Structure formats: structure tokens, C-alpha cells
């Protein structure tokens, strides 16, 4: 028995060391880039990649940047791990290695980045999805964020144009201002497309409970909704499940995806993928690429924050072949007519974060009684 225990202990220790080892050497082969070199050295710090969504789109910026700059840029993604305590050391290490540009941020881990950025004024930082404007006003930090309300608007326009029953749904992860920012835009977009539209919004209360999301979607479909937007992280899959079942008898029912082109990420499950008419996109990769370009050209407004929207290409709709095949010419024209107004600024999309309470106002007006 003792022998077994000691073996176990050895195994645990060995495993632990391997695990730590792989964590601590994100960039052992740092090829001396950085100060004094012609090569611009860029690091993207993320907790993890591989979620087929937000993180992967952000990490894809590395690919876009090296395509754009080729040999002139050394860009790598560093996985910091999901343990919050590791984020500041990871930022510290990246700063010590002397890179030209460090990209990190997002509401969850911008704190770790900003704490380090303050101590390394010579390094340029890009916060790719900031939340606190005040904290991001350091002179070496350029902070961007995405117009989530415009994502909502674009998706809402498609829902409003495509709905035949005049009732659409939105299944949301949590009831908070950030999520309602999507939803206020969604209702506004749908109402612009169809002033008679009725909207049902439900909150799952969790981003990992697809079963409840499925129940809520089924209730919406029973109430007459024919387009449902799943805006609830992992729970959103429940929306696709419910719509897939309903489509067996009625193929005018559609689901909409969020953040990435979910028609593509669900493609191994054709029955689920075929429910997704289009997705509202957050193009973090494109936004980061243009932000880095601005930083290199010296036009980036350091110390300030910028919200990038549809006009900048930072958010959009997944206009894949499936979408184009399932929209008629008139429907596509109607969507374009409305979304073009966002492009040229004629339509001002309401923003729950800038104007708290606007979601409640819209929902009171267009919610299904």
C-alpha cells in the first residue's frame, strides 16, 4: 500500500511539473525581436484558445497580422491559463521580454494588463475589448471595443424582414446591461424592418444550460415566434435544437447565431447548422488588425477609447452562401436598405450602456403581451 501511495505521489508531482513547465514557457524561443530590431514583435495574451468563438476570433488576429506584415512582424498568441492569479505574472513576463506591442484586455482580464502597462510606459498596449474607460486612459494604452448594439440591430433587421408571423424571439444568457445592449438593438432593428413586430425575450440565467434554453425556445415557438436569436453562449445551442425539431414540420422557422458564424462552427451537425440563417458577428480579428496598423502608423489615439462598429467592419452579419440561398432578392434588398443606413450614420442604433433604460422602453413597446 505504501508503495502505491508513493508511486501516486511521484506521478502527481511529475504531472504537476510538466503542467507548470508547459505553462511557463509560452515564448521560450523569443528570437531577440523587440527594441532595436527591424522586426515588430507583437504578443496576444489570452486565457485560452479553442472555444470556436470569441477567443479564437481574437487569436485569428495573429494570422491576419502575419499575412499583412509577413517577415516584418513577429506575432504570437500566448495562453495565460484560466487561473486569474496567473494573468498578472504572464503580463509581467511578456513585458520583461521587451515586445513592441502587447495585445490583451477584455473586461475580465484587462486589470492584469493595465497594472503591468503602467510600469512599462515604453511598451505599447492594445486593449482589444475594454470595459472601464477610466482605467484605460494610460498614455501607452489604446483601447477599443465593439458596438454590440449594432450587432443586435443587424440581426434584428434580418429577423424582422424574415419573420412571417410578425413575432420574433431572443433567448439571452443573463439579464444585465451588457446583454440588453444586444437586445435593445435587436428590437430596434426588427421594428425598423417591420413596425408591427412583436418580440419575446427570455433569460436562461446561465450560459451553460442549453436544456432550459431549448424549453424557452419551444415556448416561444408555441406562442407564434418564427425567428429566435440565441444570444446565450453555450446555452444558445438549445435554441438550435428546438428550432431543428420545429423545422421538421415547418421550414419557415429559423434560428440566428451570435459572435461567430455559427453555421460554420456547427457544420458537423447538419441538422443544427441548417437552422442558422445567419449570425451577428464580432470581428475581433479585423478590428485588432486595423488597430495595430494605426498604432504602427502613429495614428492610434493612445490614452483614449474607441468603439468600433459596423462602419469600421468590426461587427457584421455572416453573409455566407447558406444565408444568401435562403433569402429572396427582395429580402436581401430590404436588409441592405436598412443596414446601409447604419453604415452612413443615418440610423443611430440605441445603446443600453450609454443610455440605461432604453431596452426597457423598447421592450415595453414591442414586447408580446
Amino acid at each position, binding site marked *: 500500500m505504501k508503495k502505491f501511495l508513493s508511486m501516486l505521489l511521484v506521478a502527481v508531482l511529475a504531472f504537476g511539473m510538466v503542467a507548470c513547465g508547459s505553462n511557463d514557457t509560452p515564448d521560450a524561443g523569443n528570437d531577440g525581436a523587440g527594441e532595436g530590431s527591424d522586426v515588430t514583435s507583437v504578443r496576444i495574451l489570452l486565457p485560452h484558445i*479553442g472555444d470556436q468563438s470569441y477567443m479564437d476570433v481574437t487569436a485569428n488576429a495573429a494570422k491576419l497580422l502575419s499575412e499583412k506584415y509577413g517577415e516584418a512582424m513577429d506575432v504570437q498568441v500566448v495562453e495565460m491559463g484560466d487561473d486569474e492569479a496567473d494573468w498578472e505574472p504572464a503580463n509581467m513576463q511578456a513585458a520583461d521580454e521587451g515586445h513592441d506591442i502587447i495585445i490583451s484586455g477584455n473586461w475580465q482580464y484587462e486589470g492584469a494588463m493595465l497594472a503591468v502597462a503602467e510600469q512599462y510606459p515604453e511598451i505599447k498596449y492594445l486593449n482589444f475589448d475594454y470595459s472601464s474607460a477610466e482605467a484605460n486612459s494610460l498614455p501607452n494604452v489604446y483601447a477599443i471595443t465593439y458596438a454590440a448594439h449594432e450587432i443586435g440591430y443587424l440581426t434584428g433587421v434580418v429577423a424582422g424582414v424574415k419573420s412571417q408571423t410578425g413575432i420574433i424571439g431572443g433567448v439571452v444568457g443573463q439579464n444585465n446591461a451588457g446583454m440588453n445592449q444586444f437586445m435593445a438593438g435587436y428590437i430596434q432593428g426588427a421594428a425598423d424592418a417591420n413596425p408591427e413586430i412583436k418580440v419575446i425575450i*427570455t433569460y436562461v*440565467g446561465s450560459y451553460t444550460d*442549453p*436544456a432550459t434554453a431549448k424549453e424557452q425556445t419551444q*415556448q416561444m415557438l408555441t406562442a407564434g415566434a418564427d425567428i429566435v436569436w440565441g444570444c446565450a453562449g453555450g*446555452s444558445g*445551442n438549445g435554441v438550435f435544437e428546438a428550432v431543428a425539431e420545429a423545422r421538421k414540420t415547418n421550414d419557415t422557422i429559423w434560428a440566428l447565431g451570435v459572435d461567430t458564424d455559427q453555421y460554420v462552427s456547427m457544420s458537423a*451537425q447538419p441538422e*443544427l447548422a441548417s437552422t442558422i440563417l445567419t449570425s451577428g458577428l464580432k470581428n475581433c480579428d479585423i478590428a485588432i488588425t486595423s488597430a495595430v496598423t494605426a498604432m504602427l502608423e502613429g495614428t492610434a489615439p493612445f490614452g483614449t477609447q474607441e468603439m468600433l462598429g459596423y462602419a469600421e467592419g468590426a461587427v457584421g452579419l455572416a453573409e455566407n452562401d447558406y444565408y444568401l440561398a435562403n433569402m429572396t432578392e427582395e429580402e436581401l434588398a430590404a436588409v441592405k436598405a436598412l443596414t446601409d443606413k447604419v453604415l452612413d450614420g443615418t440610423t443611430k442604433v440605441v445603446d443600453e450602456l450609454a443610455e440605461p433604460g432604453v431596452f426597457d422602453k423598447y421592450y415595453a413597446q414591442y414586447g408580446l403581451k
Partner: protein
Amino acid sequence: MANIMDSFLSAGFLFIVIRVGVPLLYASMSAYVASIAGIPNIAVEGIMIFGALFGVYFSAITGSAWLGLLGVIMIGVIMALVMAFFTMKMNANPIMIGIALNLFATDFSVWLLMLWTGTKGTTATLPSKVLPTVDIPVIKDIPVIGEIISGHYFLTYVCVALAVFIYVLVYKTPFGLRMKACGLDEHAAESVGIKVNKVRLIAIIFSAILAALGGAYLSMGYMSIFSSNMTASRGWTGIAANAVGGGNFLIVVLTTVVFSFAQGIVNRLALTALPSELVNIIPYVCVMLAMIFLSIKNMQKEKSK
């Protein structure tokens, strides 16, 4: 508001209650079987997660939902053996083992997900299969009743059959008596020649298979994919139902039915303008009320002694 009240009385609503109640019943039966034999199984949630994940995985690699189901039962047995090894062989505290297995399952399932699919969210990239839904001949044509009890998932009917089986096993067979004896006083049981460890081993294996089936219900019928942490505390609700039942199987089932109704009502009310936070707590308030009821009952019992 009136039509919402009407909708609670409809056949469709009862169908929904059954649909959301099945995973809860699997969980509470799992907790029940283990606890009456004297080994509390609080790893229900973790085993459910594994059941859900491995069902999807095995059905994807074998191309058959039925072989996937076999994999689910296998993973249940493996989890049971791990638990039995630590609690009975190594004399570890079953609560600690339960906590360990829950934490292990939560994170290890995500790691396996990453390994098999390259993502941490879902198994959408695996071509997994689902178990069929069953239309019961004759009954499905009866109005109202047919609407309520026909057309459910295969594992729904398995669940009902297992519930009947557990009732007969525990209350009508000598083995059931032995299980209860092991739970009440293992030394007394031993003194009359019951092999306590053997009885408990069987109980734990049975318990873990029930939990694994509850997980498979979620990912191989109700949903067609696994999504990380998709059990969303249903295992814990089952454990609470078992605690309320206090060893009486019928009360355990009844409590689970109450929780299922609460969950069905929540899903229906989600469409109304009521604040979602308030609506979402209904099942948990039911758990709390049931626990209070339970402790009042116990106190009265103590007094009357």
C-alpha cells in the same frame, strides 16, 4: 394572465413537466439508491456530466446510439468502482470523494472535450447519435392521455420502468431489506450475516448507472450534443429531493414531481414580463420549503419520542 393559467392546465404543459422532470428523477433515484444502502452519493452531478459526455462520444465513434448508451452504463460502472474503492477499500469519507468526483468531472470533461473536438464548448463537431422518441401504439390515439404520455424520449420510459423496479426492489425483495439494513446499522447487518460491502457495491453501481443515464438523457435525446456543464445543477436538485424523502421512495418521487412542476412553471413564466431572476428561483424556493418542512417533521418526531 388568464391564458397563462389556462396553459398550466393543458395536456401540453404536463408533457413539458415530464420532459423536464426526467433528468431530475434519474438524479433523485441515483441519490436514493446509494443513500439507503448507507453510502451517500453526492457525486450525482459529476457522474451525470460524464454520462452525458461519454454517451455522445461513444455514439459518435461507434455510429450507434445504442452502443453509446452501453458506453454510458460502462462509465457509470467505472465511476461507481472508483467511488467504491475509495470509500469501502480505503475508508475515505464518501462526502469528500463525492466532492472530489464532482470537481474532477467538471474540469476533466472540458479537457476531454478539448481533446476530442478541439473546442471547450460543445461536441458540435462530433457526428453523434440520439436515442429515438417512442410513440406508444394505441395509447397515443387516446385524447389527452395520449398527448401527455406518448411521444417521449426512449430514456423517459426507461426512467419510469426503473422507478417501478426500485420500488419493488427496495420494498418487496429480501435484497431491498438488506440494503436498508446496511444503511441503518452496518454492524447489526453484519451480525446477521449480510455482506455489507457487497450490498453497498451493488447499490453504488446501480446509483451511478442511474446518474449516468440521467446525463445521457440530456445529451442524447433532449439535446443532440454535449455542451460543457450542461447538467446545470440537476444532480444537486435530485440530491435535495432525496434528502426531503428521508428514505421513503414515494416521498422522494413526489418531491421530484413537485420540483419538475416548478421547473415547468418557470419555463412557462419566462415568456411573461415577470422579472426573470424572481421566476428562476421558484424551483430553489421549492427545495428550501421542502427542507424546512422536512426539519419540522423531524423535530416533531424527536419530541414525540
